[in-house]
């Protein structure tokens, strides 16, 4: 018979993860820094670590919420086509206004506009996905996958007509990068992620009941429709903030939630969500160290994360009984 992990076991797992995060962060910031390179390296690396924190919090929270409301442990917003939506919007900007416009979109106003556009578009997509959600989770999954494929197909189609030099600008946006971050934009993203995260945490225990499924949570007095609507907005805001800030990291969500579920086997979101956030921080910091120190930027960090996350995803496909 399996045993329920004790509070002590959870505490040790949290302590180990937090220690690992701190160790990775300190190693990343201070390794190889000399007195001559201090002024250049430290601010740059601190900025990267802050960006990793924003993305880690955002991906950790949004992936767990998404899995809870879809009652499915192998899906995340990115896998359901969110990244393709981001790519489509970027392609549309280049198609209609040219690559110059995209590379200039680094002012806070432009960033906010892009963020707002992403939030509106992704909320609309989630609404379409969850329309008829009462009937079946398969409907949600199917609509999400079809929309994701449609966005991907449309992007590819439009990319054929883009000038090759402008396409290279777009290509740079196809992979996540923590090295082109503007401090002002990082601040805005952090504020947006904090606000959305606080809204989610205000109702944390309700998600424990929602994890039992729609029927049971309604029977337990959860205003299910309101919770799903709120979740869609929170997921859209969090995912948009991190994607617009650094770019798409398709398999990070599934990687970190799977790690969190393995390390913190519980239905309690008060444990699972911080666990997923810590797992995201560890994965991103480790990926950054490998990219910078071992591979010397030869391979984008997103490729390493997506490779590890993709393997996890395939493993889960084989193990999960209820898709």
């Amino acid at each position: 018979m399996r045993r329920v992990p004790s509070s002590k076991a959870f505490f040790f797992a949290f302590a180990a993860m937090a220690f690992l995060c701190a160790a990775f962060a300190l190693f990343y910031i201070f390794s190889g820094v000399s007195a001559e390179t201090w002024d250049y390296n430290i601010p740059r690396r601190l900025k990267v670590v802050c960006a990793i924190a924003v993305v880690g919090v955002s991906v950790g929270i949004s992936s767990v919420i998404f899995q809870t409301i879809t009652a499915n442990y192998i899906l995340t917003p990115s896998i359901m086509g969110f990244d393709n939506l981001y790519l489509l919007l970027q392609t549309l900007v280049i198609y209609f206004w040219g690559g110059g416009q995209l590379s200039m979109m680094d002012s806070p106003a432009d960033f906010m506009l892009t963020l707002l556009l992403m939030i509106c578009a992704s909320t609309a997509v989630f609404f379409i996905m969850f329309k008829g959600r009462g009937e079946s989770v398969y409907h949600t999954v199917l609509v999400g996958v079809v929309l994701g494929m449609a966005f991907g197909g449309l992007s590819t189609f439009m990319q054929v007509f883009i000038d090759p030099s402008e396409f290279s600008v777009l290509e740079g946006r196809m992979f996540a990068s923590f090295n082109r971050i503007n401090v002002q934009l990082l601040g805005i993203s952090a504020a947006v992620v904090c606000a959305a995260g606080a809204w989610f945490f205000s109702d944390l225990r309700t998600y424990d009941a929602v994890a039992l499924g729609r029927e049971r949570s309604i029977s337990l007095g959860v205003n299910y429709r309101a919770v799903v609507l709120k979740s869609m907005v929170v997921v859209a805001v969090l995912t948009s903030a991190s994607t617009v800030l650094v770019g798409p990291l398709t398999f990070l969500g599934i990687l970190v939630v799977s790690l969190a579920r393995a390390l913190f086997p519980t239905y309690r979101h008060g444990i699972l969500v911080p666990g997923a956030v810590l797992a995201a921080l560890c994965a991103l910091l480790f990926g950054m160290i490998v990219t910078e120190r071992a591979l010397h930027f030869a391979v984008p960090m997103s490729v390493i994360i997506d490779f590890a996350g993709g393997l996890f995803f395939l493993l889960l496909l084989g193990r999960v009984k209820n898709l």
Partner: protein
Amino acid sequence: MIRLCNVTKRYGETVALSGVTLSLPTEKVVALIGSNGAGKSTALNIIGRLIPASAGTVEIDGKSLRDWKSNELAKRLAILGQTLYTPARLTVEELVAFGRFPHSRGNLGAADLRIIDDALEYTGISTLRGCFIDELSGGQRQIAYIAMAIAQDTKYILLDEPLNNLDMNKAAKIMKLLRTLVREKKRSVLLVIHDINFVSFYADYVVAFKNGALKYSGKTEDVIRSEVLRDVYDMEIAIKSYRDKRLCVYYE
């Protein structure tokens, strides 16, 4: 009291429930019977606010279903659907503790813990409290969910086909448990059920549906009759007497 007034449910052109008007007695085991697609589960799910009615009103204790706040209604009415799968990894004790959610919103106090222990004890599954739900047999799992409904401490407990896939022993055990709940804890149990002999032996009141319409409702002895059952199920069902109860024989 649960009261339905002209309740209709449509799925596009299909009418699943047509103008049902009905008052259900309290502190009784009430069985909803009928052939597949007759509308009994639809009626139960509308009462349990899992699906909205297309027309008509449902009243719980004199107040329209739409006027109840979700959390307040959850202190009065619990519904257990057909599916006993839950995506979350839970032990029996954790599942039963969820019954206190409408009362404690997840912050369990000493009184809540005592009620959870009582519910486990009452349903005879105290020894299984540390087991994970997915490790239990179908019957044990059903009892665990009923224990959760007991911990929820609601006046009304609604169950959709709780005897599905259970052997005779487990099915009888669950029906006895539901009867005891009505007798000792003064709960009102409303269940959708196919086995008319269990209905005959354990229900106080029967509501029969046919083709989405209410066909008969009344005390068990008034509905478990050959001519009524023939009309409801479109087949000959003989009635024999056994221990002062009516035994339905439907083998030709």
